[in-house]
């Protein structure tokens, strides 16, 4: 087990700069998720940690040692690939023990280690099969077994669940989390699925175009996004980003937006000091769907500041546990999360509660957070 520190990492392919100064560190036993849209450089970052791609400049430390120039097999890492990358010609047990065989570990010890791992992952009865005879979930387990048996200091996962069907993906997600808790190992995990990121991580790094947009705990990323990209990317349905004007009314500041029927809807803003310099200018207000809700769903949180507004609902999307009401504010579609038992119908005007303590504001041009 070891920590991982990346400082000032650059990577270019020819003239194309893929990673532009990455600084990251994860403590021993942490679960770091790299998340971002495709092409943001997250897989490249993982490959540089593994040593499968050379870095242009910067430093990667595993534990206290720089791994610069070290061969992938000498870095004390193990990697689980998106396609599982099992050796098609070998049986499951040969797949798991191939690494040990390369290290020249003798046969008895190898089969002992294989048995132990197979036991942990409940794949003992599959040991003599070829990968082509396994289902997707079983292949996934074997791929993890091949990683675990190396007893690495850092595990690298490259979108390991994206080839599984939806139900299995959720099961395996739980399994990976359980594995992490049991092994207590450091894990770096790449995904484009923000739910995976939220559920698994102890730390999330959101990447875009080779730069880290925000690095923090899932709670911070979700509740305090540092820019509009992070706000929009994390969460499903994603955060509502509503354009509107900052107005000074008497002594207090208000955020005003227009509803679909043309009337002004204004929310009082209390504790965002940065907004004072934006008076009479357009800003973007970010508000999570669950912060626009009906009365029944409002948690009785005495310190949350709420306002009640009556608004017209365009579309209603029942989803079982919740009902999503879609309305129009500030020229944008806005999603509100209502109680699953709500009997709202489209074209109706309903009372909605805005939870003001969960609103954030962004500069319209720079897309950065106004604090």
């Amino acid at each position, binding site marked *: 087990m070891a920590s991982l520190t990346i400082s000032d990492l650059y990577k270019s392919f020819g003239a194309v700069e893929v990673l532009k100064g990455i600084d990251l560190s994860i403590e021993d036993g942490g679960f770091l998720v790299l998340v971002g849209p495709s092409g943001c450089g997250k897989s490249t970052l993982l490959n540089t940690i593994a040593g499968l791609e050379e870095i242009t400049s910067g430093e990667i430390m595993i534990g206290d040692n720089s791994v610069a120039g070290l061969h992938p097999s000498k870095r004390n890492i193990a990697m689980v690939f998106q396609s599982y*990358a099992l050796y098609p010609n070998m049986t499951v047990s040969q797949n798991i023990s191939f690494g040990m065989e390369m290290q020249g570990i003798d046969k008895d010890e190898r089969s002992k280690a294989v048995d132990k791992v197979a036991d942990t992952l409940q794949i003992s009865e599959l040991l003599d099969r070829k990968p082509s005879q396994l289902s997707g979930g079983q292949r996934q387990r074997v791929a993890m077994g091949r990683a675990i048996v190396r007893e690495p200091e850092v595990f690298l996962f490259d979108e390991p669940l994206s080839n599984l069907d939806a139900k299995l993906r959720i099961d395996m997600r739980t399994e990976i989390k359980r594995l992490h808790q049991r092994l207590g190992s450091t894990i770096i995990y790449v995904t484009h699925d923000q739910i995976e990121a939220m559920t698994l991580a102890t730390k999330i790094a959101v990447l875009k175009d080779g730069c880290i947009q925000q690095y923090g705990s899932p709670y911070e990323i979700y509740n305090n996004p540092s820019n509009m990209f992070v706000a929009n990317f994390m969460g499903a349905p994603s955060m509502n980003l509503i354009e509107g004007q900052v107005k000074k009314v008497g002594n207090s500041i208000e955020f005003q937006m227009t509803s679909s029927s043309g009337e002004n809807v204004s929310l009082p803003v209390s504790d965002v000091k940065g907004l004072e310099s934006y008076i009479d200018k357009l800003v973007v207000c970010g508000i999570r769907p669950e912060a626009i809700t009906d009365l029944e769903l409002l948690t009785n949180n005495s310190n949350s500041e709420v306002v009640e507004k009556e608004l017209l609902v365009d579309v209603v999307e029942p989803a079982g546990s919740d009902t999503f009401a879609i309305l129009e504010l500030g020229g944008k579609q806005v999603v509100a999360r209502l109680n699953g038992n709500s009997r709202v119908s489209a074209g109706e005007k309903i009372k909605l509660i805005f939870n003001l303590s969960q609103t954030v504001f962004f500069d319209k041009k720079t897309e950065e957070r106004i604090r």
Partner: protein
Amino acid sequence: MKLNALQESNINKSRMSRTLIYIVLFVFVIYYLLPLYVMMINSFKHLDDIRSGGMLNLPSIWTLDPWKSAWSSAQIGIDPSGLKPYLWNSILMVVPAVFISTVLGSLNGYVLTKWQFRGHGVVFGLLLLACFIPFQVVLIPMAKILGLLGLAGTTSGLILVHVVYGLGFTTLFFRNYYAAFPTEIVKAAQIDGAGFFRIFWRVLLPSSGPIIVVTVIWQFTNIWNDFLFGASFADFDSIPMTIALNNLVNSSTGVKEYNVHFAGAILAALPTLIVYIVSGRYFVRGLMAGAVKG
């Protein structure tokens, strides 16, 4: 009821077209097999039997003499040796040439897909070009190089020629096959600590069965059937089967022993035939794999 009638007529129609297809196929089968039939039948006839006409008739007296003669006593060039020594020459040439060109082709394909270097596309393009250069163009430069290497007129020289000429094709086959082989598996093997040759030997090669069969058949047939290189670069002691057959059939002195010629031609074609029959189904499978994934 109406639907049933419609279905019935559809079934009838498909039956009709199926019958038609089989008839056409059958005609083609006869058309293709006829030459082989003529060769086989006439190789078991006495010469008089052939002279009396009736190419398609069965022999009036069956005899193995033409085969014996073609194998061990027919006049080839100046020696009454039959085709026997030349078969050995051909095998000595074909087996190493096929082996070396296949091994080199698979290594090329491995490097060109999994260990790409700057300019790998150009290298592959040039190798491809080798597939399209006509034999005749390289004859004189090749003769010069064989002379320089001291390999002129030897079996080793012929092997070299065929390896060089076959490399374009074998590389093409393996490159396309390995291009479809997941690179992540190679990366996983790297992390597991396997080196360049270890990955090739333990991971890639065991999965290359179909394409090896395709390459071997392709190379074997081409090299075995080659005439031009054999005629240009072989000496008395390295003349391959095809040239010997030509010498047998084209001898301008004595009686034309057609029955012996037929037997000799079949003997010369037999090895390729055997290779096809033994591994034909893998050949088709390999070709399909290349077609779908390449």
